[in-house]
């Protein structure tokens, strides 16, 4: 009898209650495929008010987080009084108020202006669990407010996804706004464009060094397409490869020690590796066809490039050690400008189909090809953001060719540059 009671007690206390008869159900998708976010405006903290500071910070953060595709913004019109209260600590936030609005995450912050000095403190809260997720204090000048907002957007993405955002980086591109095709640099939202070259010729094909301190580009300044390098901060510039014929599409290796480029010194364009002094180290391709547009794999062991060695231009992948190449794309009659994604798994490229160019991505084993753009106009020159979330490219769908950005699945496309000039050949810098 005692044993029987013992067994009953054992099953009641020790066996998990889940093992008891429970009704099984399956939920095979979330009810909402975005995170509800309440993004409040910065409030002044013991100092003069500036609608411009809070407005600009809010606008930049809103645009960056919207591009990420992660969030659904709670309508600011619905905000209650907690949005008007400074709350940098969990204990100061009225979380039930935000729950009532359906929000799961909340951004609050303050700014303080003291002379030329601007201090912004921003916080990301978990509304459901009523806790602070992350926050940072940024100190600078009023002109730095956009940079601070981009930095906080990067931090929000890092907290929620484990990987920092790419919004503090820059985008280099070619524009003829000054009358000639010159090298320009802008923020990733298209703001603060500055011209970096004054070659008064044709500049093409920029690419960043792995640390983002230098830009490679080709220029016809000396009446030949020569490869140049330019230090961004000092402005120092040097000719790197100036062999007869093409010295184009220079791409620095992930370790920064070599540059892959197309040279046509012997007549036929081929892919070569040169050192950082410009000296040829290795010839990668050797075929009767035109080989061009190299793009390094993230580990530096392979290079994707374009070749018409089997007829029409297709994307190939070559081993940098052996030079052995295999064809990647099989569809379409004109495939060009491959860009190897930073995760190593996918390559973006351009394909001409039906008279127009569109952007595609494909796995490096040739599977799962996806078309990302569908006109109108031509979309070309895809390049990845350093985290692989986004692709920047050029398109003439608005009339003049401009720089656009989209998510890596083709959604969320937006124009970054104005339509008052021809802009092309974008390149997203590494994180600064």
């Amino acid at each position, binding site marked *: 009898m005692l044993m029987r009671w013992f067994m009953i007690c054992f099953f009641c206390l020790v066996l998990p*209650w889940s093992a008891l008869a*429970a*009704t099984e159900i399956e939920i095979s*998708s*979330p009810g909402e495929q975005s995170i509800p976010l309440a993004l409040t405006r910065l409030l002044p903290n013991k100092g003069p008010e500036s609608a411009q500071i809070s407005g600009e910070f809010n606008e930049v953060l809103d645009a960056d987080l919207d591009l990420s595709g*992660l969030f659904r913004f709670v309508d600011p019109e619905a905000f209650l009084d907690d949005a008007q209260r400074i709350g940098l600590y969990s204990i100061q936030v009225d979380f039930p108020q935000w729950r009532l609005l359906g929000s799961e995450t909340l951004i609050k912050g303050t700014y303080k202006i003291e002379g030329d000095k601007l201090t912004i403190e921003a916080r990301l809260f978990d509304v*459901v669990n009523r806790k602070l997720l992350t926050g940072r204090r940024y100190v600078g000048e009023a002109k730095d407010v956009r940079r601070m907002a981009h930095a906080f957007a990067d931090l929000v993405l890092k907290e929620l996804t484990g990987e920092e955002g790419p919004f503090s980086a820059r985008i280099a591109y070619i524009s003829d706004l000054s009358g000639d095709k010159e090298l320009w640099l802008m923020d990733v939202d298209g703001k603060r464009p500055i011209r970096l070259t004054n070659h008064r010729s044709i500049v093409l094909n920029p690419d960043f060094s792995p640390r983002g301190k230098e830009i490679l580009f080709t220029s016809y300044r000396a009446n030949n397409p020569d490869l140049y390098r330019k230090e961004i901060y000092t402005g120092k510039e040097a000719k790197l490869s100036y062999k007869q014929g093409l010295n184009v599409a220079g791409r620095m290796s992930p370790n920064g020690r070599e540059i892959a480029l197309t040279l046509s010194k012997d007549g036929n364009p081929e892919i070569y590796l040169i050192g950082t002094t410009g000296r040829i180290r290795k010839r990668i391709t050797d075929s009767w066809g035109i080989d061009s547009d190299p793009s390094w794999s993230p580990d530096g062991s392979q290079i994707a490039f374009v070749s018409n060695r089997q007829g029409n231009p297709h994307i190939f992948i070559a081993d940098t050690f052996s030079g052995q190449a295999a064809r990647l794309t099989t569809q379409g009659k004109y495939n060009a400008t491959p860009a190897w994604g930073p995760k190593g798994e996918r390559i973006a490229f351009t394909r001409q189909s039906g008279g127009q160019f569109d952007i595609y991505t494909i796995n490096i084993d040739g599977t799962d090809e996806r078309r990302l753009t569908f006109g109108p106009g031509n979309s070309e020159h895809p390049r990845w953001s350093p985290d692989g979330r986004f692709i920047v490219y050029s398109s003439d769908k608005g009339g003049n060719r401009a720089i656009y950005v989209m998510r890596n699945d083709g959604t969320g496309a937006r124009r970054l540059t104005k339509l008052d000039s021809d802009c092309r050949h974008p390149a997203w810098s590494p994180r600064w």
Partner: protein
Amino acid sequence: MPDGTGDEVGVSALAFVQAFIQQNWALSPYLLDQSRLRDLEAKATLSYAASGEMIRYRINTPSGNQQFDDSLKKAITKSKQLPQPLPKQLDLLVTFNLKEMARGK
């Protein structure tokens, strides 16, 4: 779907609870590796009193993906009180996965 409650009231209550939890589950596909959507699955046991209050819960088998598991915890937290009572206590074994989301990718 067999629901174990054996009557129409039970079926309707079960469908209501299922819809309520799903509605409270927010997860962006951009938080996840798109190629892994089909692999993510977690199982949780939830128990609701007839009053509609969640009296206990446990995530028995987490998916191992932090973003996915965190979103489930939030969904459960948001589902701790049903907006209406139930005909009787309800014990659920809930499987969360992304089969529908993966179909669209």
